[in-house]
């Protein structure tokens, strides 16, 4: 059946994947940074609350904040040392955020209760979820939604399918790819736990076909273990790794507008999250380090780096040989959905999958001209929206019409802006429109 079209969704684009720089480079361990910055907000939801003070001694893995509600997770000290400040610090998502600054003592002393537990698979479901939350797990794919919330669907929703997201459709990024090659066992063990927690029968791993080695390894491992999971090779197309598009490709189910994956009986977790779930439940190991792809023409030595959360970007770039002179733009995440950074002092957070450094030429901007109604944006929109119309409505500040045309369904993947021959800032326009629509909805109650 190999001649059949590989599974996918409608719309999407084919940007150059630019992964050649790092996809064959093994994960390297970054040395301990001299200090780390742990922001209270590293996830979607209520910010966590600091529970340490200036001058406190902390161990690596010790919680330094407690969760500020159900949709919230704690953060942990990622090195051992002294808390030198609890203050506002630059944050990769924009405005400064209250952060805990820990100066390293160079020892990396771990909290004692991190230890392997043989019978972890037989733990109670509640205990598993509690461990996931107290380990501070928030989606490692980049959206950073608290994992335990995703794993506790309301009782009226039945979950049938678990999907592990190993798509990594963003160009340049290879951290998930390397993780699948080097820590496949962990991912499968994490999957086993996720299947247990959710009580599902079917589990899939979706991987794009541009990673044949990862597909082979995962398939081999699953066949060896005899678990009833399946690896689904997917068509190489952006945004294949977006939650709703991935569900469509693998199960054929469409998540209705304004609804969640659980409404069609699916839960999607990133491969990194699956591995972290294993660490959290089997070892009680909190999330204090992650793999970050440092890449792009502006970096002297591109690498996949295993680094502590809270490591300042500047330290990471130093480890990668420094920045080139013609650096034009630094992006956290991939080039499509990543966020441009304005400070090198911002730290690696739980959702930092990569740091992309573009040179001046690649980060140049094009002059915006008028829309020629070519409808390319409409062809590529994976959500079936009309980006051209939405952009025009927002420009005219006609937010009611934008809402009627489902502006809130936009996933901000950037496909429309990528193909627009007039270089219209469609994503920014739609983002602005969404913020205004939400504002007026809040006002109306």
């Amino acid at each position: 059946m190999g001649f059949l079209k590989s599974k996918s969704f409608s719309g999407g684009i084919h940007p150059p994947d630019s992964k050649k720089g790092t996809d064959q480079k093994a994960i390297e361990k970054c040395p301990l940074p001299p200090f780390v910055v742990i922001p209270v907000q590293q996830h979607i939801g209520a910010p966590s609350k600091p529970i340490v003070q200036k001058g406190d001694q902390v161990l690596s893995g010790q919680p330094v904040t407690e969760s500020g509600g159900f949709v919230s997770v704690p953060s942990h000290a990622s090195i051992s040392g002294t808390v030198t400040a609890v203050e506002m610090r630059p944050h990769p998502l924009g405005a400064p955020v209250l952060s805990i600054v820990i100066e390293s003592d160079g020892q990396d002393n771990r909290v004692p209760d991190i230890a392997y537990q043989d019978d972890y698979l037989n733990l109670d479901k509640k205990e598993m979820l509690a461990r996931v939350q107290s380990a501070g797990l928030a989606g490692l794919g980049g959206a950073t939604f608290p994992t335990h919330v995703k794993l506790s669907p309301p009782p009226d929703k039945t979950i049938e399918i678990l999907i592990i997201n190993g798509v990594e459709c963003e160009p340049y990024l290879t951290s998930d790819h390397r993780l699948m090659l080097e820590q496949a066992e962990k991912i499968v063990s994490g999957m086993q736990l996720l299947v247990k927690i959710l009580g599902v029968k079917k589990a899939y791993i979706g991987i794009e076909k541009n990673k044949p080695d990862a597909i082979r390894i995962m398939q081999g491992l699953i066949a060896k273990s005899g678990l009833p999971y399946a690896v689904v090779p997917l068509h190489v197309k952006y945004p294949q790794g977006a939650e709703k598009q991935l569900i469509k490709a693998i199960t054929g189910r469409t998540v209705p507008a304004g609804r969640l994956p659980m409404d069609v009986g699916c839960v999607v977790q990133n491969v990194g999250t699956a591995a972290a779930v294993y660490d959290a439940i089997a070892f009680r190991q909190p999330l204090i380090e992650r793999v970050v792809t440092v890449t792009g023409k502006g970096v002297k030595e591109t690498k996949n780096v295993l680094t502590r959360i809270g490591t300042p970007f500047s330290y990471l770039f130093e480890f990668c040989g420094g920045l080139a002179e013609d650096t034009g733009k630094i992006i956290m995440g991939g080039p499509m959905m990543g966020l441009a950074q304005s400070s090198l002092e911002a730290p690696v957070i739980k959702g930092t999958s990569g740091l992309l450094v573009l040179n001046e030429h690649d980060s140049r901007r094009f002059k915006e001209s008028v829309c020629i109604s070519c409808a390319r944006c409409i062809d590529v929109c994976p959500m079936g929206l009309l980006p051209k119309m939405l952009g025009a409505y927002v420009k005219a500040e006609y937010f009611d019409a934008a809402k009627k045309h489902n502006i809130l369904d936009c996933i901000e993947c950037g496909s429309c802006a990528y193909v627009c021959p007039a270089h219209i800032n469609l994503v920014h326009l739609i983002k602005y429109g969404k913020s205004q629509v939400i504002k007026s909805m809040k006002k109306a109650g």
Partner: protein
Amino acid sequence: MDPLFIPSIIALGGMGLLFGAGLAFAAKKFAVEVDPRVAQIIEILPGANCGSCGRPGCSAYAEAVSSGALPPNRCTPGGKNVAERISSILGLVGVEMEEPKVAVVQCQGGKNEAVEKYLYEGIHDCNAAVLIGGGLKGCQYGCLGLGSCVKACPFDAMYMNDNGLPVVIEDKCTACGICVSTCPRGIMRLISRNQNVFLGCVSQEKLKAVKSVCTVGCFACKICVTPKVTPSEAIVMEGNLPVIKDIQNSELYEAVKKCPAGSYVIREKSKIPVEPEQV
């Protein structure tokens, strides 16, 4: 002459008369009673539809006033004059007007004073700019300088100066408050027209964080609240910002003089009290 057009005239004229009579009958029969005072009040109102009264437009306010749902002093652009005229139409007496207010810009960090943290090339609107990394200004409290308040002002009472900061033309400002609700940073504020001194900064940061991004920002040195400068406690600290409690106290001018950052703003220089000459 063609005799054919005579029956046409008769037919059309007849139909016209018939329909006219029908319309006249319907107008009498189905007439909706309108409060004549509503029309009179609409005449008086400024007609800017600014919404500061809480209704979507002037005619909605006129209806609300004549039905008694709202008091006649809600039209800030119209001020005392309009309130009195509405009261006389409605036969009300003793309408108190609130103190006349004016909008002020509580940020002085323009292009020359404040640091920008990145090059912004997006939509020319402050509310769109704050979505990109929290705004282009180094100061997370500062004016973004893209003029959303100026665009929103229904009375053309604002403009952007060369330094990239909005300026209120006080003669035109009616204190409708549209700029206040538009600004994503909360920099615009309505103050009493009797208040001549206000703080031109809303930053809650302290010394180092302020100094690294702005030369005129208040860095919470607290000099203006010391008894030496303001013995009658006309200014008190709330958080990291001084707040003026007694708006007409002459000690405020002393605070303006002593402020090391120059964060205070004087609205009208001519109103500064003249110091007695030293002998």
